């Protein structure tokens, strides 16, 4: 930056011997990373390898127990993210932190508003934003409401927000997790522009192809420590993967088909309005009602969703998050009123309560285990009872059968390899993977006939992921019908027998997982390829 800088500029970021200990979680141990200025530096590692902790340390959200951080050659010690921002570091979080009902401009300046006479100086803010977006090629209309923007645009707003605060070093935490392939290309174009503008980008990911295409340098993290720094030109995806995993890669391939003729779950015409449930006018068929809503231009969270899942079949639903997946689950679980019908093993369960549906054999691995799946401050055996409080072995009469529940929890711990000191341990003491294994074990208990698995391996380590896949496959072979909702396209393609794409509440395509590419799937997921049931309806056995 200064004129008389030596030929090799000082590294933008230098981490040396960073160690962070946490009880129960994979922490960081002796992390060493050197990021050259004006480069895109990728940090790769499996879920739970310690990437997020490392970034939190670099962004001042957590203090390392040992080690030093140097920014542009100066040693720093961050106590809060404000310190990191002051040092020119900006973070783009994986989950966007934007106010939907504000405009782009308001979101960008939020918390750092230029003021004139106590009021927001819109003119100055606009000038600054337009300057930033033109120099870095981040085109977004500053006056649009964020809620009207697509995912790619939202991400650009997040990046603008960080740049607006003067960041010269950007951390992007899994930026492509919510993007489809086309949007990823746009993002990478933006990143190249930023790099050309002299900014440094730290790019966290576990998607190797992407990393290889964008990064100038790669650091691999495994089990909390840096295991290698490699040059992307000299390494293949395969080698990188082996560095990341340290052993053989698990694959989610399902082998021979176990799909039977018996329909386990059948939904038809599921429709949900965005602005609250209104009961169907008497005598109106659902299709007509839905068509009416559509004609009125009303937003539908679920739009005439129909499918059958057979015994022994895994039906995958692909889609960018927020396109109706959660609503579909809530409708099938009976947690939210919906038009249309749900049939379980031939019985119409549309009017049943959640409890009755569960008792009839619906299992549910929720997308967010902390929000919907666990009582964190309760013991493991109490978590085993959750959702089974009206069934054997947890209940006898009005009582909770503690002994039987504990014994059955012990069974789950053994069969599903949950690593815990005992059944009385509180659920929050366990790591994410072990919590998830407990949930999977619980939901497989009581001989379910149908299982909803929403992001079953999100945020768990490789070992747990492979184990959960194995359990799903085994249950499928035993005749379980599974609805799989996931953001991991490899998981979807690998496990599913049938694949549907959901886009804006509609099932827009039905694909054969054996010959679909992530790119084509991405096309349907963004609506870039529109097409009603582009594939032949598929011939089931």
């Amino acid at each position: 930056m200064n004129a008389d800088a030596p030929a090799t500029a000082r590294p933008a970021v230098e981490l040396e011997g960073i160690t962070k200990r946490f009880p129960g979680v994979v922490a960081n141990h002796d992390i060493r990373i050197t990021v050259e200025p004006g480069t895109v530096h990728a940090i790769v590692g499996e879920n739970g390898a310690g990437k997020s902790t490392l970034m939190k340390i670099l962004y001042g959200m957590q203090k390392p127990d040992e080690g030093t951080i140097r920014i542009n050659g100066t040693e720093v010690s961050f106590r809060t993210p404000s310190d990191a921002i002051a040092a020119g570091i900006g973070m783009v979080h994986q989950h966007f932190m934007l106010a939907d009902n504000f405009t782009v401009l308001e979101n960008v300046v939020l918390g750092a508003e230029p003021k004139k006479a106590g009021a927001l100086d819109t003119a100055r803010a606009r000038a600054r934003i337009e300057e930033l977006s033109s120099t870095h090629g981040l085109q977004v209309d500053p006056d649009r409401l964020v809620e009207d923007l697509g995912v790619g645009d939202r991400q650009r707003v997040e990046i603008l927000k960080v740049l607006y605060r003067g960041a010269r070093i950007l951390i992007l935490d899994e930026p492509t997790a919510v993007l489809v392939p086309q949007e990823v290309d746009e993002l990478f174009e933006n990143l190249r522009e930023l790099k050309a503008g002299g900014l440094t980008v730290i790019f966290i990911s576990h998607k190797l192809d992407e990393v290889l295409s964008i990064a100038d340098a790669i650091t691999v993290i495994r089990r909390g420590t840096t295991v290698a720094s490699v040059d992307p030109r000299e390494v293949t995806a395969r080698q990188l993967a082996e560095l990341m995993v340290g052993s053989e890669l698990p694959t989610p391939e399902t082998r021979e088909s176990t799909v039977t003729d018996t329909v386990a779950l059948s939904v038809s015409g599921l429709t949900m309005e965005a602005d609250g449930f209104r009961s169907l006018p008497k005598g109106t068929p659902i299709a007509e009602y839905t068509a009416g809503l559509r004609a009125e231009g009303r937003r539908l969270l679920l739009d005439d969703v129909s499918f059958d899942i057979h015994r022994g079949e895994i039906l995958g639903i692909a889609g960018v998050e927020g396109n109706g997946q959660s609503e579909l689950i809530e409708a099938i679980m009976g947690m939210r009123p919906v038009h249309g019908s749900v049939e379980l093993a031939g019985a119409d369960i549309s009017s049943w309560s959640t409890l009755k549906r569960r008792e009839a054999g619906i299992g549910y691995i929720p997308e967010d285990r902390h929000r919907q799946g666990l009582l964190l401050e309760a013991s493991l055996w109490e978590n085993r009872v959750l959702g089974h409080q009206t069934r054997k072995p947890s209940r006898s009469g009005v009582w909770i059968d503690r002994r039987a529940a504990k014994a059955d929890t012990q069974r789950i711990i053994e069969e599903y390899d949950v690593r815990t000191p005992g059944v009385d341990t509180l659920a929050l003491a366990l790591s994410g993977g072990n919590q998830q294994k407990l949930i999977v074990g619980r939901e497989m208990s009581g001989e379910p006939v149908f299982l909803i698995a929403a992001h079953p391996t999100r945020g768990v380590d490789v070992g747990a992921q492979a184990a959960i896949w194995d359990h799903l496959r085994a249950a499928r072979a035993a005749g379980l019908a599974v609805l799989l909702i996931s953001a991991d396209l490899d998981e979807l393609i690998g496990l599913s027998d049938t694949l549907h794409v959901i886009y804006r509440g509609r099932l827009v395509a039905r694909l054969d997982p054996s010959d679909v590419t992530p790119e084509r799937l991405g096309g349907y997921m963004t609506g870039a390829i529109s097409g009603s049931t582009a594939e032949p309806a598929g011939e089931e056995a």
Partner: protein
Amino acid sequence: MPAGLYRALLTVAGAAIAIVLAVAISSVAIIAAGASPEAAFAALFNFGETERAVVNGITTMINRSVPLFIAGLAVAVGFRMNLFNIGVEGQYRIAAICAAFVGAQFSLPAPIQILVIIVVAAAVGGLYALIPAVMKVTRGVNEVIATIMLNYIAINLAAFLVRGPFTGERAKGQLTTSTPTLPESAWFPNLNGLFEMFGLPAPRGGGLWGFLVVAVLLGVAVWVLLERTKFGFEVKASGLNPMAALASGVKPKKMVIAAMVLSGAIAGLIGLPEILGDKHNFGSNFTPGLGFLGIAVALLGRNRPAGIAVAALLFGFLDRAQGPLQFANVPPSVIAIMQGAIVLLVVVANEITSRMALRREERRAARQLGRNTPVEVAA
């Protein structure tokens, strides 16, 4: 050491430290009031010289603790579900006057008479709590606001009823109004026999209220209900994580109504020890404020029946000292300061100790994980 025992020991240690700190804070208040802390604390533990005085002191303390214990239970049932039933105050007053009035209308054999009064009190308390519960589940009205407002209505309604429709005959020279006196079959036998068993003299006045037995049974019943039954599990689940409870088939609206009505029904019994054991009517000098104190007692007792019992005894012990403190020239309001300080400090101590217990759990779980040795790195 098992996790449960460790947690219990930590809790007790935390509470002990909190009480010591509260004593220190109260000492400052006592000095500020121009009295000597030593005299005050001597008065606190001074139950009197004679056996009779000691018996009277203990009786006063326990008689005060019984309604506080019931009030604490009532509040705790709601707290378990994150329902803040601030309306215990109104529920017990309206229940007390209704029960006292109904009980005076007929005369049946003692057990039936008393049972009817208990049932009426519980039913009135429960119904009064049903109002905010229904408002919450149908219209989303916050139960804190609703119950506070209903308290005003209940308190003033009770004041009106005792002077108007429910008023009884006033004895000559009596200054207060009250409901008709209960027939003798509704007088709950006292437990003075307990003292006599140990060769001690019987306390004066109404004696040791027999309702203590009912309170103990109630405490056991609430414990069993909350800790051992399916209903208790659903209450706990709804309190810890309402979203997970919903996904597990627990009906949130049903739970709100059930917990609120149960809380109100227990609250309905708060006034009965005094009415059945001592006053035998509901008068305008009926003890107020027990519902609000119940909130403090429940907090102090961590919403568990055993803890609530200890907390109620502690409050009873402190309240008993009002008289002796006056003799020692210490303003009795010191007691209120001390109660407030204890509650605040215990809440803080609970937070700290539960975090400590948690960290220990995590460490234990981490050790278990540590057995899974990481794969050797070959970079």
